């Protein structure tokens, strides 16, 4: 951002000219308030020192999905074995660049969404519309921490997005041939992109919470129905897909005004669905993005409204076959459709209902609001009469299954490698169980179909075979509650830091699960039972709500929605992930009284060393998931990915065996303390649910843990390892600093092991450890990675 000195001439005030010494060019927030802190609105290099600290301990590890680079026409270049391309970049730096570009893409998706929404909301509500996120004084923690300003109105976010866009442009520039050559600096840039992403997300969600009256830090936000089985398809079904609720709110307003919620089944898919239920709890949720193609193929939707992000690119090819008109409402997705913005609603309805046009662009949301309900009511009888669906009937099904030659081409085509061939064989023999199982593991991508030499519409076969299961897909989601409020932090902060709450596990992101959606439910349940705070959002939040206990209750019904141990919080759509990272900032501000304004490094340092929070993106596949994860990492929050994760090309892995990497300062005096590897990694993946559970527990360790906290965390780490991996973990002793860290129930047994297996000295009378631990517990230890934060020290 640049400072612009200027003269203003103000309309209707002709002879007045006011000279202002210093006006920040891209907004006015700074006229009210000077940005505060050490690094307000930091440029790329301003937080680089922090990044280098992080990257020194958590080394970037690269796993190329391709050994070549094809960025420019100097190449493409073979970089196998860390060779250099024509521009001189080597494999390592290119992979770092590649991961950064994808991080940037995710950040652009969120902040592009935010900008679009902000433009729309300023137009509707005015720039002066106040921010209201609930009972919080720290309304925009990320904005305060990164920008050093405290926004009060939605208009105050304009310069924030200006900053985001400037940074994204600078970063995108560095992906050009012949720019950055260093892997580590591409990582620093990726971390910058990730941070900026969280800022963009925060803006996006805060403005919609404020203007669209979404739940504001509401622990008991209402429950919404979720699942392919909950939709009343006897009514006209209006399906909204995407992430940007702007246009859909006009539909909901129109439906309210015209009393249409009884007459039309309004359903959403993906994050738009979350936000629809946050605006109006009469809306229903079909499910996560992996249901998208499946649900379209069912033929049930009579009209589809799309906005942006995670919307299938083959929409028109699919819907036109099924005579489902599509209204595109955002210029990010236009599908080559005619722009009907200026046309008469009746004309559009005529052309779409007749099938003359498969869809239309409509940028006038008032029109969308009126047209959608009218059109869906017109379409439903037409479509229902024809009984349009892509699914085969019973006879066809049999025929299709029988026509399979078991060639296996589809299996190789399937990103999950699912045994479609075997399921076909079983189905041909009348056994549907394999397909019923496969249905949940199938991420609905449709790739298999392109490789079948018999042209079997495989996904249709799967869905047909799983009809019984699908009818039972009825769950509940607590609608997105938004931020964690300051009062909640005040209450829970102490538990988190003492460790009576063992940690925060954020289960977020996409549904590209390795082994079906049940895993995510199981993980959530296991951690909830152990009193972890489980926070969720996006597609994961939906899938967690899809399973029930024996009493028919979902996790949302069994666990409270407060920021409190053993509670399950759904923050909302993808952009609400900002509230999760923001929560850690709030703990630093409220519980530890840190000055957060423009003070990113100090806050990240605090979070990394004190707050036992870990993210899990088990089914991550989008660039946004990468970006969110990378942003968490810059803030010191570790993230775990599912087994598709290494395809992101880069992880941040610690080396527990390398003692030198685990030196911290004690802020009381600047002395160096060698600590246990906590958190052990910043970005890592795991193969299975059973592997990931103990890992989550382990990643909640922090150097700042006190005895009680460490004991509780260690208990869960050990128990989860024993339960899922069949044994004590090899490294449990590393986290023991004194006998007081040991789980009470097992103390004696563990002391014995420490003596026998690790050669520690034990005073058996006092049940005390005499020798062994790498360091002692020191209740007032103030761990930090940043020398300048130490008393008496200057870096």
């Amino acid at each position, binding site marked *: 951002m640049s400072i612009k000195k200027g003269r203003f001439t103000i309309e209707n005030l002709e002879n007045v000219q006011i000279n202002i010494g210093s006006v920040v060019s891209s907004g006015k927030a700074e006229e009210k308030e000077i940005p505060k802190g050490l690094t307000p609105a930091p440029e790329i290099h301003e937080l680089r020192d922090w990044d280098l600290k992080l990257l020194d301990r958590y*080394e970037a*590890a*690269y*796993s*190329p*999905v*391709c*050994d*070549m680079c094809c960025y420019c026409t100097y190449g493409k270049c*073979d*970089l*196998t*074995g*860390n060779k250099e391309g024509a521009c001189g970049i080597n*494999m*390592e730096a290119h992979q770092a660049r590649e991961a950064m570009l994808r991080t940037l893409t995710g950040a652009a998706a969120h902040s592009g969404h935010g900008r679009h929404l902000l433009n729309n909301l300023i137009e509707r509500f005015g720039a002066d519309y106040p921010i209201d996120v609930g009972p919080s004084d720290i309304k925009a923690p990320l904005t305060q921490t990164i920008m050093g300003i405290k926004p009060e109105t939605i208009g105050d976010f304009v310069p924030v997005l200006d900053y985001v866009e400037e940074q994204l442009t600078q970063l995108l520039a560095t992906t050009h041939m012949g720019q950055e050559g260093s892997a580590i600096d591409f990582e620093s840039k990726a971390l910058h992109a990730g941070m900026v992403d969280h800022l963009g997300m925060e803006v996006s969600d805060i403005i919609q919470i404020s203007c669209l009256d979404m739940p504001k830090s509401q622990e008991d936000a209402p429950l919404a129905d979720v699942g392919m089985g909950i939709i009343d398809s006897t009514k006209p079904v209006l399906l909204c897909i995407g992430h940007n609720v702007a246009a859909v709110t006009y539909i909901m307003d129109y439906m309210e005004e015209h009393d249409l919620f009884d007459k039309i089944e309004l359903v959403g898919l993906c994050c738009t669905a979350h936000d629809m239920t946050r605006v109006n709890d009469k809306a229903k949720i079909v499910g996560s993005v992996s249901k998208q193609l499946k649900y379209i193929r069912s033929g049930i939707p009579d009209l589809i409204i799309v906005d942006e992000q995670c919307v299938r690119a083959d929409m028109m090819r699919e819907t036109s076959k099924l005579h489902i008109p599509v209204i595109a409402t955002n210029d990010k997705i236009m599908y080559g459709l005619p722009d009907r913005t200026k046309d008469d609603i009746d004309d559009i309805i005529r052309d779409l209902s007749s099938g003359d046009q498969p869809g239309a662009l409509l940028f006038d949301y008032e029109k969308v609001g009126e047209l959608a309900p009218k059109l869906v009511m017109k379409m439903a009888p037409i479509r229902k009469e024809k009984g349009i669906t892509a699914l085969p009937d019973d006879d066809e099904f049999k025929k299709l299954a029988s026509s399979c030659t078991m060639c*296996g081409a589809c299996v*190789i*085509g399937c*990103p999950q*490698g699912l045994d479609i061939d075997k399921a076909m064989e079983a189905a041909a023999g009348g056994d549907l169980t394999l397909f019923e199982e496969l249905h949940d593991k199938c991420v609905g991508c449709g790739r298999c179909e392109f*490789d079948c030499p018999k042209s079997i519409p495989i996904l249709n076969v799967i869905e047909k075979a799983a009809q019984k299961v699908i009818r039972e897909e009825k769950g509940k989601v607590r609608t997105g509650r938004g931020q964690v409020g300051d009062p909640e932090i005040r209450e829970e902060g102490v538990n988190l830091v003492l460790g009576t709450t063992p940690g925060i596990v954020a289960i977020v992101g996409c549904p590209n699960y*390795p082994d079906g959606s049940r895993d995510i439910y199981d993980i959530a349940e296991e951690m909830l039972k152990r009193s972890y705070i489980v926070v969720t959002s996006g597609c994961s939040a939906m899938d967690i709500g899809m399973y029930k206990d024996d009493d028919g209750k979902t996790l949302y019904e069994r666990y409270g929605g407060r920021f409190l141990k053993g509670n399950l919080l759904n923050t909302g759509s993808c952009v609400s992930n900002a509230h999760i990272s923001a929560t850690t900032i709030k703990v630093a501000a409220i519980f530890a009284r840190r000055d957060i304004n423009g003070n990113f490094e100090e806050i990240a340092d605090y979070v990394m060393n004190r707050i036992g929070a870990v993210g899990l993106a088990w089914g991550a596949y989008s660039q946004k998931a990468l970006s969110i994860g990378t942003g968490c990492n810059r803030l010191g929050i570790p993230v775990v990915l599912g*087994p*598709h*994760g*290494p*395809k992101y090309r880069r*992880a941040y*892995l610690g*080396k527990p*065996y*390398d003692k030198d990497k685990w030196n911290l300062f004690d802020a009381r005096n600047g002395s160096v303390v060698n600590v246990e590897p906590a958190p052990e*990694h910043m970005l*890592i*993946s*795991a*193969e*299975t649910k*059973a*592997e990931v559970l103990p*890992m989550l527990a382990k990643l909640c360790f922090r150097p700042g843990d006190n005895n009680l906290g460490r004991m509780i965390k260690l208990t869960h780490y050990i128990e989860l390892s024993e339960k*899922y*991996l*069949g*044994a004590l*973990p*090899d490294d449990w002793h590393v986290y023991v600093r004194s006998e007081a860290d040991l789980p009470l129930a097992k103390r004696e047994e563990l002391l014995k092991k420490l003596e026998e297996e690790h050669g520690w000295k034990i005073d058996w009378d006092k049940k005390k450890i005499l020798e062994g631990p790498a360091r002692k517990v020191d209740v007032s230890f103030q761990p930090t990675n940043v020398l300048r934060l130490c008393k008496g020290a200057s870096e």
Partner: protein
Amino acid sequence: MAAKVLDTTKNAVPFDRANVPGPKIAKAVKAEVAGKFISKAKRPLLIVGTAGGDDGVIDVVKSMAEKGIPVAATGNSIKRLKEEGIDATYVNLHALVSYLKDPNWKGFDGEGGYDTTIFLGHTYYYASQLMSTLKNFTKIKIISIDRHYHPNAQQSFGNLKPDDFLKALDVVVAQL
């Protein structure tokens, strides 16, 4: 029908069709060749994924462990391996690969790194990516004796039918 001779080099296409990494891809090898290759390694490491605990496969892991090959149990294979009394160390595969890349890592026994990694029982795409790390950033030899063709290995079987897979493993073990 005459009994077919087991040829593990057939059908050597990436099990995920788009998993074509570039000019350097694994040689599809016969089971005997794989076995001999392993037997020649000075510091081999058998890296077992979750499916390494599957019936049939676990016996092979056991045999290899008994022949003195150290076993890294990744995913959640450690549970089954322990149950079978196999001496193995749990480690996360992603982390393991980054340790392997580190010249200062001393291995599980403190004796130094490994010169040959043997992959068995992994989620296909997961292992493929982590082989890619080894392939591009280390000199460590990578041999896959898993059921599917792994282009990022140096040597791999083609895609095998389950039966042939177990037969191939037996051949490998016989060479050790």
